[in-house]
């Protein structure tokens, strides 16, 4: 597990405290009931805080699963920051 993935898991656990740890990597907007607009913004803000990046709201609309966010971060976060 890479460092980005690990940090992202921690963020998911914070935003979705009722989500079992073994379900985090497969989590998506469809599979998690509490993934509403407030959760999406909170996810975005926590990711920005943790990875010190600024996300575009147009991107956020597309980031609807753990794996999509993970891939997005791999493209955004420089290896040095990882």
């Amino acid at each position, binding site marked *: 597990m890479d460092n980005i993935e690990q940090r992202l898991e*921690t*963020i998911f656990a*914070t*935003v979705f*405290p009722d989500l079992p740890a073994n379900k985090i990597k497969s989590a998506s907007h469809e599979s998690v009931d509490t993934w509403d*607009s*407030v959760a999406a*913004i*909170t996810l975005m*803000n*926590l990711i920005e*805080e*943790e990875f010190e990046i600024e996300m575009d*709201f147009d991107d956020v609309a597309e980031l609807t699963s753990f794996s999509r966010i993970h891939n997005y971060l791999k493209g955004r976060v420089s290896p040095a920051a990882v």
Partner: protein
Amino acid sequence: MKLAEALSIVQKTSAELPEFGVLLACGITPLHLQNYLAAHLQALRPDRKVRISSGLFGDLVGTLDQASRQDLQAVALVVEWSDLDPRLGYRQLGGWGQIELADTVEAVEAMLNRLENAVASVPKSLILAVSLPTLALPPGFHTSGWHASAMEIALERAVADFAARIGRHSSTRVVNRQKLDLNSIPATRYDFRSDLNTGFPYTTSHADVLGSAMANLIAGPVPKKGLITDLDDTFWAGLVGEVGHENISWDLSSHTQLHGLYQQTLGMLADHGVLVAIASKNSAEVVNRALSRPDLAISKKKIFPVEAHWDAKSGSVSRILKTWNIAADSVVFVDDSPMELEEVRAAHPGMECVLFPKNDYSAGLALLHSLRDLFGKPGLSEEDNLRLESIRAGQELSKANGDPTSVEHFLARLEARVILEYNSSTDDKRVLELVNKTNQFNLNGGRYTAAEWGQISKWPGAFVLAISYADKFGPLGKIGVLAGREEGRALYVRTWVMSCRAFSRRIEHACISALFQRFGSENMFFEFKATSKNGPISDFLAQFSVGSRDGQVAIEKTAFETKCPKLYHQIVERNG
């Protein structure tokens, strides 16, 4: 505090704890303001599970109207310019400029009047914390940004007038804008991107500071009660034993003004009921001469006691605490010597030990501000003016206490009056203050919010007794509270607290005696629970207890009357 940390604090709190309900009334999307308010409140009230509810987006008045229909301890009202007139925000295109905004002052005043009416409908038992616009007005005015237009000045004035009007209510607390400016730089507060995309206009850093400010207004730490200060290079500049009392200084021309400002701060605190004492390693005679200088910025009579000798500071502090009869964690000790601070800290864990800075103007100013924060209280009471005098009188009593004959002689000549006010108003702030701040003579350590306390008088057979005391040395004011219920031939006491200032006067005996007589009861049962500090009430009950029933300590009238020492008080009973 980082957002992740805030969320974590809220999530980690046990759902089993009793709730602390707060209604967040704001026109913006509450989002992280709600998270930060919850986290800061949770940190201040670890004994409760904080629950924040919010109303409809954009409906401040409607949300405030819900306050009376929910089980709450407090209401947090957060107002921004866009709540007062949507044209003063960025999410609606209602027009800017002199023509389009011609009626905006009128519209804002009308909205503030509606808010004032809504604020008046919030139950007085709830704390109402209010934040008025923290974000800048939009660039919709005809002047340049540096030039405040007449309209902007009028808008600011309307809000300031509103703050002054609602701030008069004792349960309303308005965020201090100047303090907010120091902790959240105005230029870093607004998040344009978030406002336009989500309706949440604050940066997370501003949400953090504002949440903290609101939490402090709702459930801030208990104010400290006493301050013990060093003298040399603290209370004044210079070593008085070396340079003489005429050469110590605290003035501008000597570049020692910070010491004068410190004295002035202590004088203010003393006027507000804070106890001020001195612990100094000096000769008592030299100190007395210095404290007699007429240009001191605090009156010498406001300082009591003065411990000036060459013994360890921790010993001086112990004696001062004994005289004041308060715990170390209610006291702040100020000294310029890190070594002295460490010695006192080691002997008195829990005491706030503060370094008086040397040649550091920023730290000096920070010290003055921090003293305000440590001792600040929402309101002043009559008891604040009486505290020091009652301690001086208590010293007389202590002197007599060594000799039983002398004690009886002293008490018999005290001309003591105990005033028992039955069913006193549950809105009485002093009563709730006593219940929530008293530690030593406290039946079970139970703490109540104003809303919870309001329910006490509604129990069947309930009585709430406010106890005041006066003697020839002067009044002590309201010093005790006793609450319970009458059932059959017995009284069940759930709350009983008495200020430590009132100890050793047999007031507690007088209360029990008066209750037995008034209600004609044969037994009293006390919901006693030992805490780390309530030894005095435990000892008192142990003297008269005839056992316990269902975990409650029982006192029988006949047994009490047999063991009770002679009482000299005049009892005055009133109905609230």
